[in-house]
């Protein structure tokens, strides 16, 4: 899969190294633990003819790319001023208590990883959080916990 992926990343340039970022995101998506592993770094370096340190450097720069294994679902709570003013801290606490983990930790069952994130562009409905690709706004501590509970149920089914 990976060679195709490299070729497809962009057709606008012949230089393979230019596709490093999309390739990293694609590998991360395909990795069951939602991250870029050391094996991934080696493989990508070889395919794109880049040094491993160069691949690692780019991977380590971007906050959406993780170099440690993560859970199946990523919960990101916005930490910028509009959300902070709207009560982000209470949401944060409720979610932490619900999951029994701190920021950048993963639940024991491997289902959730909690992270903080910068502005989701949902300030008109702050406080907001994002779970995987979906944004939830106008949160209360209760509604945030409810959303997570629902996800747990869906996952069991």
């Amino acid at each position, binding site marked *: 899969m990976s060679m195709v992926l490299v070729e497809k990343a962009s057709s606008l340039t012949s230089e393979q190294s230019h596709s490093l970022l999309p390739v990293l995101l694609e590998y991360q998506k395909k990795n069951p633990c939602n991250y870029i592993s050391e094996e991934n770094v080696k493989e990508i370096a070889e395919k794109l003819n880049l040094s491993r340190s*160069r691949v690692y450097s780019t991977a380590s720069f971007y906050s959406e790319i993780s170099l440690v294994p993560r859970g199946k679902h990523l919960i990101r709570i916005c930490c910028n001023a509009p959300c902070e003013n709207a009560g982000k801290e209470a949401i944060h606490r409720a979610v932490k208590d619900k999951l029994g983990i701190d920021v950048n930790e993963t639940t024991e069952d491997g289902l959730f990883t909690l992270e903080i994130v910068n502005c989701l562009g949902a300030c008109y409905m702050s406080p907001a959080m994002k779970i995987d690709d979906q944004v939830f706004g106008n949160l209360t501590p209760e509604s945030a916990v409810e959303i997570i509970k629902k996800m747990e149920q869906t996952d069991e089914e």
Partner: protein
Amino acid sequence: MKENIAIRLNGNHITVPSGITIMEAAKRNGIKLPSLCHHPDQRVKANCRVCVVEIEGRKNLVPSCSTVVEEGMSILTNTLRVRETVKTIVELILADHPQECLTCIRNGNCELRQLSDMLGLTVIQAEKKEKRLPLDLSSTALVRDNNKCIKCGRCAEVCHHVQEVGILYSHNRSTDICVSPEYGKSLSEVGCVLCGQCVLSCPVGAIYEKDQTSEVWSALDDKRKHVVVQTAPSIRVSIAEEFNSPPGEISTGKLVGALRALGFDKVFDTDFTADLTIIEEGHELIHRLQNGGVLPMLTSCSPGWINYIEQYYPELLPHVSTCKSPQQMFGPLAKTYYSQLSGIPAEDIFVVSIMPCTAKKHEAQRPEMNDSGYRDVDVALTTRELGRMLRSAGIDFNTLLESEYDDPLGISTGAAAIFGATGGVMEAALRTVYEVVTGKELEEVEFEDVRGMEGIKEAEVDLAGTPVKVAVAHGLAHAKQIMESIKSGENDYTFIEVMCCPGGCIGGGGQPYGSTNAQRQKRIDALYRVDRNMEIRKSHENPAIKKLYEEFLIEPLGEKSHHLLHTSYTNRRVG
């Protein structure tokens, strides 16, 4: 020719060529602006910001390293605003830098320390960062101390763009930024070739050679030890820089005198075994040519280069000459031939070498390098370590009495001297191979085509009717190009010289700090002067070498040579 433009520098009307930077314009007009990340041989980075100046009419300060002068520009380099800003920036750097200057290996030649002194910084108000990252002591030659790193990016640039080995790079972002191999791995895990170019480019003490001077001091102090020293070809044109002489000074006599003053029992010359290398390697080439051996043959003198090919192009190892490097030919000869001549038992002989190179430390410690029955070379020191030893012994290099190398391992030719410059091994080999193959005397001994700082050089030589194409590469990025062309089968070279470091050994990772390309060129020029001043300029005419074969080795590529002077390589592909 570039046209001149008129600018104002601190109010003074001056004329400068268009297209130059403010930093350069200031320099030409007697003002040295502060700099840290700037390196004359590298791309402009403008990271550190200590070179900022004011331009009238512009809102913000601008970095002088990257801003090009414009007609009518009014530049102010010394306003209160500039001074305060630059001082604050240096203060910010120092707050993130351990205050261990007095015990730092760069004490005395640290660019940051000089900058702090230049600006008259007396207090650091900024909150200091407590960091205690462990030292990386994993490699045989280099020590990395990331606590001292100021993130200028000079080492990463040289590692990625000059050498293209790609070990050091900056990772993470913001205050987590860290210059290191991936995953913060140690140098021994990642295929570092130990060339030490990062050391030369580091402005502070964040990466440096493993200091082995104490081992040498102990040996010198040991009455049972007969301590002999060999000096590589390039040391004679660089050691004086350790004592503030301008680059390109030939100080062979002082070098020998200084080593005697340190207490070495015999002072020999690696040039002697450089001549020997030419005989062995020349005959190996002829043998390969006549017997359908693997071609092109690649030279093997440069241990950083050997580290590179073993780890990155192991499939090409059969191309590499089996000859040991001059340093490693010297070791076993000192402990066999010289032991016999002098009657001193090999176990009592301690061999020290003074090398321009950090990778030589690794080479000396390779497990197979004990063909004499003992460790062939006990300690390899860099030029900088020798400088430190001399300073700590209070030896005033500049007023020393000159001395001469000892016999017989101190006798050499001009061909050996140029080993220290890119193209030198090739030129020395051609001088000998031509005469051996054709049986005729070479009229013009100087091969201009293989000289100079160009990355890849080519020449064609007529060997008794057979045209032979040769190439010379220095700096691993260029070596890589050659390796790729061998792999793809598109080159038709017979013989290729590769030196790991830009400019060859004169630009080695163990050389004095400030080894810029301009400085490298001056050292190269000095080596060619040494060559021209020598009576004998061809290795096969070295009388001591002739005698060595008569008395001991019998013949080139013979059994003894095979045992003592040749080696084999290992596939160490980075996994």
